[in-house]
Every structure is written in structure tokens, then in C-alpha cells.
């Protein structure tokens, strides 16, 4: 194979890595920072995808669809946190697993009732529907480049919010010592509600953005749950930077695994995770 082949594969890998970061970003907040085992991450993703499909269908435009869907998913996340998750902060992880697993079942059933079980597609807006010709017979869709650009912006914004703003500071403080933050007069309940809603909305946003390339079908969220956990664990729990690097690593490992070791393609990612954890049990950027 020529070098251009490997160059395109490199692009594929990075692009897939961005997509993974988008999927895992919400989980970084909820699992990484708040320490809640959120199995319903995939369900939020699925809800985002379906909201996007539904609202894009009504408004006729992907961007308006997404703009309308974002506040809805924040509200949904907030409701879930207030009505369910907030009762479990003091409890064992097992309770969180049970609760969020129940949320998956409920969300799937809701999806089936509200939108049926068909496979749907979301049209890509005219503006982004073109493609860039790479070789004589292969093109690269502009929409995928758009997703990558969005992921980078999102990573920068998240990093800035968590590391540089007052809100971010309180979030980090709340995650490392809940009681102390409370003693300092900060409303920790409100804070965690905000973080959880943001996390859920990020997962939903990933679903919306990926809907046009992924298509929307029942069970769409199940596939991303595990890989999202892998990204967060490799990157180091609680680190946005780690999740970003972790996602890129997995994207590249997966792509080149498929090309160079096709027989073991599905194992490469998990082998990478095992290797990283063996070397750094706390993940690449995790604190001990």
C-alpha cells in the first residue's frame, strides 16, 4: 500500500477518536468527576439521537433541531438527577448501577412507544453535505470534518470551564471533598444537579451530532456505553485532558488494528486498555 493509504487511515483514526471523545465527554463529567456510575449514559445518547431525528423532522433543519433538542435534554438530565440520582449520592455504587440500569430499560421502552422501532436517518444540511475528494475513487464527507471541528471546540470549552472558571473550581472541589465544600457555604446539591444535567446533555448532544452519520435505531445507545467507559478509564478518571487523549489513542488503535491486525480488530482496544492500566492503574492522567 502507498503512503497516502496510511495517511488517510491516520485521518480516519483521528476522526474516530474525536467522535469517541464526543461520546465519552458526558461520561467524564458524571462518572469521572461526580463519581456516579452512570450506565444510562448510552440512554441519554439515544435520547439525544431520537430528539434530533424528531425535531429535525419537524423543523426541517438539523441545526434548529439540535438547538431545540439541547435545552430539552438539559431539562431531562435535571429531572433525572432531582428525581432519582440525588437520593443515591451517599449510597454504595451498586445502588447507582441498579438505578441507572433501570433508566436504560425505561428509556428504551419510552423510545419504542414514542418513536417506534424503525431505523431512521437524519438528513445532513445542504451546507455540509458535500465531500472532499481524497484519491481518485475515495472522498471524505464534509460533515465528518464538521464533527471533528465541533469536538475540538467542545474539548477546549470543557477544559476551560473545568480548569479556569469559578464554576469549574467548585465542581472539582465538590468532587474531591463534598463535606468541605458544603461547610464553605456552597450549595452542593445545586452544583451536582448542574454537573449531572451538563453530563446528560453532552451525551445527548453527541447522539444528535452523530445522528446523521450513524442513523437512528433502537439500541443505538448500547453500543457506545462500553467504549465510553474505556475512554474515561484509559484517560484517567476525572480528567478531561485524559479523556481527550484516551479517545484519540483508542481511535488510532482501533483504526490501525483493523488495517494491520484484521483478525484481532475487536480485541485491540481492550488490549490497549489492559496495557495502560497495567502500566498506570490510575489511567494516563488520573490522580493517584
Amino acid at each position, binding site marked *: 500500500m502507498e503512503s497516502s493509504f496510511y495517511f488517510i487511515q491516520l485521518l480516519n483514526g483521528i476522526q474516530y477518536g474525536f467522535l469517541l471523545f464526543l461520546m465519552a465527554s458526558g461520561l467524564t463529567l458524571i462518572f469521572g468527576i461526580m463519581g456516579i456510575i452512570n450506565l444510562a449514559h448510552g440512554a441519554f445518547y439515544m435520547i439525544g439521537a431520537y430528539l434530533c431525528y424528531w425535531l429535525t423532522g419537524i423543523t426541517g433543519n438539523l441545526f434548529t433541531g439540535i438547538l431545540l433538542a439541547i435545552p430539552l435534554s438539559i431539562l431531562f438530565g435535571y429531572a433525572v438527577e432531582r428525581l432519582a440520582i440525588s437520593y443515591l449520592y451517599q449510597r454504595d455504587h451498586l445502588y447507582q448501577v441498579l438505578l441507572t440500569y433501570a433508566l436504560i430499560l425505561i428509556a428504551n421502552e419510552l423510545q419504542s412507544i414514542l418513536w417506534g422501532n424503525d431505523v431512521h436517518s437524519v438528513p445532513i444540511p445542504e451546507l455540509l453535505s458535500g465531500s472532499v475528494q481524497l484519491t481518485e475513487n475515495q*472522498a471524505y464527507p464534509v460533515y465528518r470534518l464538521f464533527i471533528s471541528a465541533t469536538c475540538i471546540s467542545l474539548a477546549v470549552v470543557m477544559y476551560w470551564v473545568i480548569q479556569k472558571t469559578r464554576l469549574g473550581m467548585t465542581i472539582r472541589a465538590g468532587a474531591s471533598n463534598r463535606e468541605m465544600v458544603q461547610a464553605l457555604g456552597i450549595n452542593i446539591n445545586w452544583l451536582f444537579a448542574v454537573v449531572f444535567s451538563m453530563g446528560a446533555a453532552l451525551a445527548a448532544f453527541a447522539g444528535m451530532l452523530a445522528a446523521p452519520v*450513524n442513523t437512528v435505531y433502537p*439500541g443505538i445507545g448500547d453500543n457506545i456505553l462500553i467504549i465510553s467507559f474505556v475512554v474515561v478509564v484509559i484517560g484517567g478518571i476525572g480528567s478531561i485532558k485524559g479523556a481527550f487523549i484516551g479517545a484519540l489513542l483508542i481511535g488510532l488503535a482501533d483504526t490501525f488494528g483493523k488495517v494491520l491486525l484484521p483478525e484481532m480488530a475487536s480485541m485491540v482496544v481492550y488490549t490497549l486498555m489492559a496495557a495502560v492500566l497495567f502500566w498506570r492503574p490510575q489511567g494516563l492522567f488520573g490522580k493517584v
Partner: protein
Amino acid sequence: MFERPGRFHTGRATGAEDQEWQGVSGTTRHTHNRHKSIFCADDNHREEKQMSDQKKPGISRRDIIKGGAAAAGMVTASSFIPTRFAIGGTAKVKVGILLPYTGTYAKLGTNIKDALQLRINEAGGKLGGREVEYVNIDSEAAPPKAPELTNKLIKKEQVDFLVGPVHSVVGMAMVKLARNNGPITVIPNAGANGLTGKLCAPNIFRTSFSSYQPGFPAGQAMLEDGHKNVVVMYWNYGFGKETAAAFKASFLAGGGNIVKEIPTPFPKVEFQAYLTEVAALKPDAVFTFYAGGGAVKFVKDYAAAGLNKSIPLYGAGFLTEGVTGAQGEAAEGVRTTLHYADTLDLPANHRFREAFLKATGNQADVYAVQGYDAGDLLIQGMAAVDGDVGARAEMIKAMESATIDSPRGKFTFSKAHNPIQDIYLREVVNGQNQVIRTVQKAVEDPAEGCKIG
């Protein structure tokens, strides 16, 4: 252990011609119910349970005669429903349905169930003159749950027929439990060759296809279309592998050359790396196996990468089955081989599609057809024995020799109980699978490893 000697015995014995004898026998049992020896001869735990039930005072001789023969022994054994009461009345026949109603295959399961019930309703809602009770269980297309759910239908619900599933691995588990001594089973989708191959059994029928059937003729179809150098891509699991193997068998035998075989992890839908590889290999065409959400994503990615302009895409029919709406433009020109097409110009097909749309509000697809034909097979089997599920051998014989007037065209069953059917080459034109030609008539699965027939 799924032997139900008592069940079959009683079912058989309650046939109309035996009613007189039944009445006597039932009464006899009652009068002798404290003499254990009679029941021991029957060697069945259910009978023993009934015996203990009978010890309750207050069951008069008249009650028992009124209730009929079978009821005499089993008034309070709630799980048991006799096929016929001695005086009037007909017990419901139980059809256990194990299909996915949630998850990726939810739509398939729903369509199969709807079409099955549509067919039975068209026949007056009865099987062999008996009312039908459906016991529906969501398989979730989850292989680990399959044995438990199948057992629930066989043992707890004591169904007379088992219909399902969609997923081949669930099918394996189900057939292993049901074959030989379990209820008569009709598979309305799961295509694993082994279900009517190594695992074949007198009581297992399939109204769909074996993986071999859409795969094998595709090799011939692509050679006829002039494609000699082909890349084969498929989801790396049972169904995908079997389809690809059948394709390769005929394609290589016809002088084709396989440039590269690319198995991709199931059920992952990230194809970008593979598409780059296909672009670099520049084959004449690509043959694929993908289905459901994966098929939508693959076809869209293939078109988005611009490959559809220079490298024609082929596949086993599932690539464009029930998903062309979601694939849109991207699916135009994709050619697939299958035993059905929505646009088949057959009276049975027009009739069926209209009825299905009216009954459900949805367009029918190949899965609905398979469910519809499963219903037809049950109707024919039960009609042949006049509703007597105990007449098992006769019923199986009738089902084996049945001709199904299917929307896909008439078909019969092979010795292994798999359809012998025509395979069509279709092309997506304006979002619909148009039949280009019949590639092979009466394709019969080789049924490797099947010992019956």
C-alpha cells in the same frame, strides 16, 4: 427433560373419536383414585399431582362427567388445558412466540408477530377449529436469556407450538431445547444453516431461509453481471460467515477471483478504515453481508466515501431490506439477492401487502412475509389433524408436504424442513427493491449434517 408423555397421551386420547373411551377412563380413574397402582402405571408427575388434587372432597361423579374425560383427572391442574372437552366446547391452542420486541431487531419481531396473527385471523382466527391463545415473550435478541425464556414457554406455559426467533444464536438455544420432544417449532427468521442442518429434527420447521440461500446465488449473479475481482466484506459472526462462505463457493466455482476478504467485528458500525482499504484495492465490485442499523450505516458510509460511483455494491438481501427509507439516495443502485422483494408482481404478494398495511398501518417486508408463512404452516398442520395436537406424527407429515402459497411465490419444504425457494436479484430504484431477474429457481439448502429424511 421435555418429554411430556402424559400430555401427548391425553391430547391424543381426547380426539373426537376417543371421547367415549375417555369418559369411561376418566370415571374409572376417579373411582379408583385411592388405589395408587393405577396412577403409578401412568408414570407421570403431572398425573401424580392431579391425583393429590383429586383427594379433595366435593368432586362429585357428575361433575367429573360434566367436565369431561381429561378434566376428570385434571380439574385443578391449572397449567393443563385439554384439547377437547367431552361435551361441546373447545380448548384454546397455545402458540408461544419468542421474538425480539426491544433493541436492534425490535421492528423485525413486531412485523413477524403481526403477520403471523394476520394470517391466522384471515383463517377465522382459529387453528384446526380451535381458538388460539398467543403467549408472547420478548427475546430481546439476547442469546444468554434464550434457554430460560424457551423453557418458560415449553415447561411453564406448556405451549402447543413454538414460533421464533429472529436471532440465529437465540435460535440455536431454542432449537436445542425444543428439538425432538418439545413442541412443534416454526422458525420465522433465524437463518443459521445449522438450524435445519446439524440441529434439524422432525418437529423443527423454518419458513424463512438458511444463510446459504441468499449467499450462494449471489456468486452467480455477480459473475453474470461481469464482476470478476471482488472484495468480500461481512460482519464477523455466524450468519455473516455462512453467507460469505456460500457466496465464495459459487463465485470461485464460476471462475471469480476474491481480491480480499474483510471480516469486520460484529455488531460494530465503524467502517471508515475498511472503506479506505476497499478504495485502495480497486475491485470490480464488493459483496457484503450487513443487516439492520449496520446495513444503513454501511450503505451510507459507502456512498459518502464516493465508492458507489466507481465500485458497485452487492449484498445478501438484508443490506437493503426494510431500511431503504433510512438509506435514502445512498442505496440507489445497490444490488442484492433474496427470496423476496416488496415489488414482486404476484397476486399473493399484492393481497398480502394490502392486508398487512390495513391491519398494522405499516408496509410489509420480508420478515413479515416469513411470519405470515409461519402462520400458514400452522394452519395447514392443524387443519390436517382437525385441531388435535396429540396427532403429532400426522401433523408433522402434513407440514412437511405442505405447499405454502407465499407472497414470495409458492414454495415447499426440503427434507430438513427448510423452504425450497427461488432467489431473486434486486436493485434499489427510487427507494424500492426492484426485481432484476430470478437468479436461481428452487434453491435448496444442502442441509449439511442433517440426519432426518
